[in-house]
């Protein structure tokens, strides 16, 4: 097990290098002048352009540029944002906000997705089942930002149930609506996956054994149906963390949240390449680590799986 973890951690290095290189080359390949908006409304002075070109090694071929960039990053220098703040500092302010938003989204997936999925499976063919299958289909069919704007308008503006934007420091209660919007697509999948696995497990031989052992119905469901059905669902939710981080960009845009998505969005729009690459690298790293955790959790949940 320990050796497996070490191997997986070592494997992250080439993956990280590969992804950052891709992002780096794509960022610089974007059309337009990288200095376009760096000096306010005026074009940048020649001296500034020269200094920056030298600092970023823009005259060197791409792989060399990238090499310098990585070297700096390995030394903890992630570059600076346009207003002179270190990228690392800005990111460490934005990241917790996004993490909070993602946590809210995952909480929705777990509580609502799994909860309703179980309820729907147990009342298969009933009104509740049909209703939620329909709702989940809607959630799957509409883009997140449409759902975001609609809920924002009705629940936030019209009914005043939730705040429409998220305040400084992103308090938890402000994140309920954005978290739900962020979760909506995955929530629908989790619900359907839970329902389908549960229905499958209900037919399993070992469930019949549990009934034949005279266990009470509630215990059969909890111990021998739900517990087994959760294995693929939890794996799915774990793998979903990456997707949620990606989706956060849109959601944070809709609700004007100062998270990593907002930061990335802003950096992209003003062609702040260093920030884009650093932040993306950070996100990729988090996704890789979470995936490792999920794989380890998977082995804990299903004893048939052993990593060597």
């Amino acid at each position: 097990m320990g050796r497996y973890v070490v191997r997986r951690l070592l494997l992250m290095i080439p993956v990280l290098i590969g992804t950052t290189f891709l992002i780096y080359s794509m960022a610089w390949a974007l059309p337009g002048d990288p200095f376009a908006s760096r000096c306010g409304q005026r074009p940048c002075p020649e001296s500034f352009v020269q200094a920056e070109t030298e600092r970023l090694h823009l005259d060197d071929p791409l792989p060399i540029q990238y090499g310098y960039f990585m070297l700096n990053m390995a030394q903890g220098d992630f570059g600076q944002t346009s207003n002179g703040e270190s990228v690392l500092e800005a990111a460490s302010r934005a990241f917790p906000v996004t993490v909070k938003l993602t946590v809210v989204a995952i909480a929705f997936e777990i509580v609502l997705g799994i909860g309703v999925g179980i309820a729907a499976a147990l009342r298969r063919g009933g009104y509740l089942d049909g209703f939620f299958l329909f709702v989940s289909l809607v959630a799957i069919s509409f883009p997140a930002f449409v759902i975001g704007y609609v809920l924002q308008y009705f629940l936030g503006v019209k009914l005043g149930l939730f705040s429409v934007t998220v305040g400084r420091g992103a308090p938890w209660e402000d994140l309920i609506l954005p978290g739900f919007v962020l979760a909506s697509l995955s929530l629908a999948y989790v619900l359907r996956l839970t329902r389908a696995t549960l229905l499958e497990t209900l037919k399993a031989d070992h469930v019949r054994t549990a009934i034949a052992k005279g266990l009470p119905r509630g215990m059969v469901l909890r111990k021998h149906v739900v517990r087994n059905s959760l294995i693929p669902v939890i794996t799915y939710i774990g793998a979903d963390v990456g997707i949620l981080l990606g989706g956060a960009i849109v959601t944070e845009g809709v609700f004007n949240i100062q998270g990593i998505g907002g930061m990335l969005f802003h950096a992209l729009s003003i062609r702040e390449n260093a920030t884009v690459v650093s932040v993306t690298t950070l996100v990729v790293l988090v996704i890789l680590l979470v995936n490792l955790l999920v794989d380890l959790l998977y082995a804990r949940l299903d004893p048939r799986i052993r990593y060597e």
Partner: protein
Amino acid sequence: MFSQKTTSPVEEGKPEVDENQPLLQVRDLSVVFRTREGSAQAVNKVDLDLARGQTLAILGESGSGKSVTAQAIMGILDMPPAEITSGTIKFRGKDLLTMPEKERRLYRGQRISMVFQDALSALNPVYTVGEQIGELFTVHRGMSRKDAKKKSIELMDKVRIPGAAARVTDYPHQFSGGMRQRIMIAMAIALDPDIIIADEPTTALDVTVQAQVMELLAEMRRETGSGLILITHDLGVVAETADMISVMYAGRTVEHGPATKVFANPAHPYTLGLLESMPRLTGAGDRLYAIPGLPPSLLNLPSGCPFAARCPRAEDICRQDPPPPAVEIDGTRFSACHFAEEVVAHGVR
């Protein structure tokens, strides 16, 4: 609120029974599966008796309703699609079919237990075998998990699993097929039941361990003094262990009687065919006989004898009128054939 005293709650623990009543008496049991294609008459007016200490073997081709009968007795049929359309299943005089589920549950595992065919899928892959055996004691005997674990080890020892104390924390997939079936048997005898139902307990196993597992099952039955319903295709095993035989065909019991008599002298043409298809140890070169044709569709049973299309003894009356459900032969056994007496006397020729 007011009825608290009158509706006595169903208590955990072994349900009380009247030991003077017959152990198991199934009468007129019919099970229908309602499917999209129609209603399949899987079990059709079946009678069945089991006495304490007895082994009853149920024989019959695939699809003849053996497992469905067992599941109905056990109370684990999937309803729907299954529906019990007639009959009683009396355990020590109490009809299990009219009993509320709360009470019925207490009979499962404690009074009647089951050994399934495929232990790998019948055990839950995510719990240790110790947890799965121990669960019986925590639920039905209110034991602590620690005591239940001790009990599990004892039982695993009893069914001769080597190194039981160490293996109690292993998962089902870490055992061989034979050992897994031993664990199933340990669970079946755990609460000292009165009836064990074994549905093809050795079919999924290697030939080399089949005999050992069967021997263990017979030994455990002897030790507990329980009755055993054994569903199997292995006529050799039946000859060795069964006291009584029920032969099923297309959901019906076509012959029922003491094993020795049925073996020596079948009273139904289907039983005759079945015995002839049995591989014999002598004459290794014999070609195996198989009954020609297929059983009728359960969705649309013929009006006459269900075996008529395949029966070498069939006459016109067989295709028109259903045979009497139980022609009594020499006071001990029954056959559902128009010509039962003749078949006993002269076979089918």
